[in-house]
């Protein structure tokens, strides 16, 4: 039960952090051109945005929650479970950021989730 609560908390902080970051960057507005000077100016504006400072701690918390999850459960459970953050993130993008997520994008996200799980599981040393 505690694991599932922690997993839910992990998925919420991961998605929350990235949604806040996206929100902040969209509010900042894209750099006029992709030249070092303009990008630096963009970064200067971005770090002045409050949403950036909401996103960074949430991303840090999600990182530590992942470490706790890894210490509680085998990696063969944690990796597929954390790949779910792609699905939760897409739901967040659709309902919070109001992005258009069509069938092709959903299919892509689900294939990526399964693919990441298969690739990551292969790195686990067999005991």
């Amino acid at each position, binding site marked *: 039960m505690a694991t599932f609560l922690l997993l839910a908390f992990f998925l919420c902080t991961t998605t929350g952090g*990235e*949604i806040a*970051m*996206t929100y902040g*960057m*969209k*509010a*900042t*507005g*894209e*750099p*006029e051109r*992709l030249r070092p000077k303009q*990008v630096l*100016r*963009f*970064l*200067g*504006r*971005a770090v002045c945005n409050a949403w950036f400072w909401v996103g960074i701690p949430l991303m840090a918390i999600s990182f530590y929650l992942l470490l706790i999850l890894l210490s509680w459960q085998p990696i063969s459970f944690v990796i597929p479970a954390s790949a779910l953050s*792609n699905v939760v*993130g*897409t739901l*967040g*993008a*659709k309902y919070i*950021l*109001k*992005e*258009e*997520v*069509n069938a*092709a*994008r959903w*299919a*892509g*996200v*689900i*294939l*990526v989730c*399964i*693919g*990441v*799980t*298969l*690739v*990551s*599981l*292969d790195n686990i040393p067999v005991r």
Partner: protein
Amino acid sequence: MGRESRLRIKTLVMVLAMVVCANVGDLLLKRGMSTIGAVQFTASGLGHAFRLTVANPIIWLGIFFLLGFMICYMTVLSWADYSYVMPAGAFGYALLTLLAVIFLHESVSPRRWVGVALICIGVMLVGQTKPRTTEVAAPQKAVA
């Protein structure tokens, strides 16, 4: 070149830069930390590891690449959808597998190849959708 295709190329180039920076950064950190060895969880052990870490040029190079990743990530999110950038970022897993096969001559299991194929198909499916489906703030000129 149309606006739409310029946006797509700009986004894909930034996502590729993001993926390369993240993976090169991770590999350099791993390489750097492995030269330091296992860290002892005592006050003196952590202090010793910290001194070795800040004196290690490979770790600084890794941090430099990870900073590059963060800059690319922030920049691309200023115009592209989060639901476009996030799955495309998983392309790194496929890239690492290909690099391991080409340069390290590692053998890759069929399960991993299936995973790589699914990631590539998934990224291609997402890649052909519109990179931006929401309104964004207009490009800003000099800050007042």
